[in-house]
C-alpha cells in the first residue's frame, strides 16, 4: 500500500512503525538522553522512538520542541522518520534542522504498530511494505 502525502523534510528512510493516536511534545514529552516517551498518561509512555518511523497526528506544546528533536538526533536517539496527519511549525522545523525525513497529510489510521514502513519524503510517499 502506497499513500501520497506532502513533503515536510527531505530524505528517505525505512523502519518499524511506532504509532500514537495522541500528539507528541518533544520538549518535556520525550527524553533526549534515551529517546523514551516520558509524558505521563501518553499512549507511548515508556516506549522508545529511536530508529522508528514515528507516526502521530500532530505536534503540541512548547516552541522549544524543535531544539529538543535536534538534541535527540545529535545523541542518536531520534526517530528514523516522522509521519503526521497535519504538521505544525515546531515539529516541521525540528525535522528540517535535524534532517529527519518527514511527510504529512497521510491517513495515519492505516498504519499499524510494528508495520514495516518506507518513507520517501522527496516524493511525499509512505509505503507499508
Amino acid at each position, binding site marked *: 500500500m502506497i499513500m501520497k502525502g506532502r513533503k515536510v*523534510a527531505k530524505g528517505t528512510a525505512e523502519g518499524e512503525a511506532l504509532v500514537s493516536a495522541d500528539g507528541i511534545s518533544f520538549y518535556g514529552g520525550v527524553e533526549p538522553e534515551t529517546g523514551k516517551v516520558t509524558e505521563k498518561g501518553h499512549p507511548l509512555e515508556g516506549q522508545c522512538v529511536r530508529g522508528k518511523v514515528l507516526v502521530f497526528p500532530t505536534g503540541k506544546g512548547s*516552541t522549544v520542541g*524543535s*531544539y*529538543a528533536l*535536534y*538534541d535527540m538526533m545529535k545523541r542518536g536517539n531520534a526517530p528514523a522518520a516522522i509521519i503526521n496527519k497535519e504538521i505544525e*511549525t515546531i515539529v516541521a522545523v525540528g525535522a528540517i*534542522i535535524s534532517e529527519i525525513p518527514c511527510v*504529512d497529510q497521510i491517513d495515519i489510521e492505516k498504519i499499524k504498530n510494528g508495520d514495516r514502513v518506507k518513507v520517501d519524503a522527496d516524493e511525499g510517499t509512505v509505503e507499508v511494505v
Partner: protein
Amino acid sequence: MMKLTKEEQEMLEGKHGNAVKQSMDILVSLGEIFGAKRLIDVTSVQIAGVSYHNLGDAGLDYLADLAKDGKVRVLTTLNPAGMDMENWKTLGIPEDFAEKQIKVIDAFKRMGVTATCTCTPYYVGNKPEFGKHVAWAESSAVCYANSVLGLKTNREGGPSALASALTGKTPEFGMHLMENRQAQVIVNVETRMFTITDFGALGYVIGKKIGNKIALIRGIREANTEQLKSFCASIATYGGTALFHMEGITPNSTTIPKESVSVSKSEIDKAKEELNDHDEPDIYSIGCPHLSLREIEDVARRLDGKRVKKEMWICVARPIKKRAEEKGFIKMIEDSGAKIACDTCMVVAPIKGRFKCLATDSAKGCFYGRGKNSFRVVFKDIPKLIEEATS
C-alpha cells in the same frame, strides 16, 4: 510552489554561505508547507531559545555552527536567558550552568545579534513602526507586536526566528496577510478592569474561552501599555493567540464578526481564585513580562525605606535597569534587600526545587511556575505583594 527572486534562489543554493543556505532551507520549507507564495522582507527579529536550560548542548552546537559564517541582516534581539549575565552569582546560579549560558550568548553575539535578553524588546529599541513585517518569537511579545504595535508576525519558534534574522526574510502566510488578521469573535467585557491582575485574569478567561481565535474585545474603557502587556502575556499563554483587537484602544482595523461571547465579573473573580493556591510564598517575583521604567519607579517608591523579609526578584531588561539606575530607583530597590534580575526571569531561570511557592502579579508567571517549576503560586497585585514581603 513559492516564487523566489534570483537573490533568494542563490541564497538557497549556498552562494551566500552555509548559515544563509541552512536558514533558507527552513524558511522555504515552511513557506511551502503553509502555502506561502513568496518570501517577504522583515524589519526586525526577536529570537527565543536563549536559555541554556531549554537549548541543551545540542542547541548550543546548532548555534555555534550557524555562527561560523552567519551574520544577522536586520535588528535582532534575544529572549531572556537562564540567568542575569553579570549578576548570576547573587541569584544562586550554578557555575557550570553559567559557563554554558555565556557560550550561548557569545554565539549569538558572533552573529551580530544585539544581545539584550528580554521578553519586552519594544522597551529596548526593537520597535518598528506600524504595519511593518517582523519575525518574532516569545508569545507575549508576538501578541503585543501584532495587537498593540500593529506589526505583523507569526508566532515564530527559535530556529525559524533565527533563520529570518540571518536572511532578513520570512514566508508570507498567516499573520502577514490582512485576510487572516480579522476578528473571528466579539468578546463583550461586562465589568471594569483596573489593575494588572484584572487584565491578567481577563487574558486567562478569554484565552480559555476562545483559544487562539482572534477576538474583538469590547467594553474596556481604558488600558495603559503595562496593562496591555500583562493582558498579552496572559491571553497568549492560556489561549495561544497571536492577535486581538480592543475597541477604541488597539490600532488595527478589523471586520466585525457575528459570533459573540461575554465575560462577567464573576468569571474574573473565579479566574483570580484559580490562579491562587493560597500557600505561604518563599519567593516573590515581579516583572513577567519585564518591567517598564514607570513600573520600576512604582516598585522602588513602594520598597523605599523598607526591608524585604523574603527572597524577591525584580525582573527587567538591562537597558531599562541602566536608566532606572540614573534616576536612583535601583538603589532604592537594592537597599530594601530585593534583587534586580536582568536578562532573565522566573520562567526561564533554573530555579526548580529551590523554592516551593511563587508570589507574582503575572498570570503567565503562574502558569510556568506551576507547569515548569512545580511551584505553588499566589496571584496578587504589586502593592499587596510588596506589603506582604516587607511586613
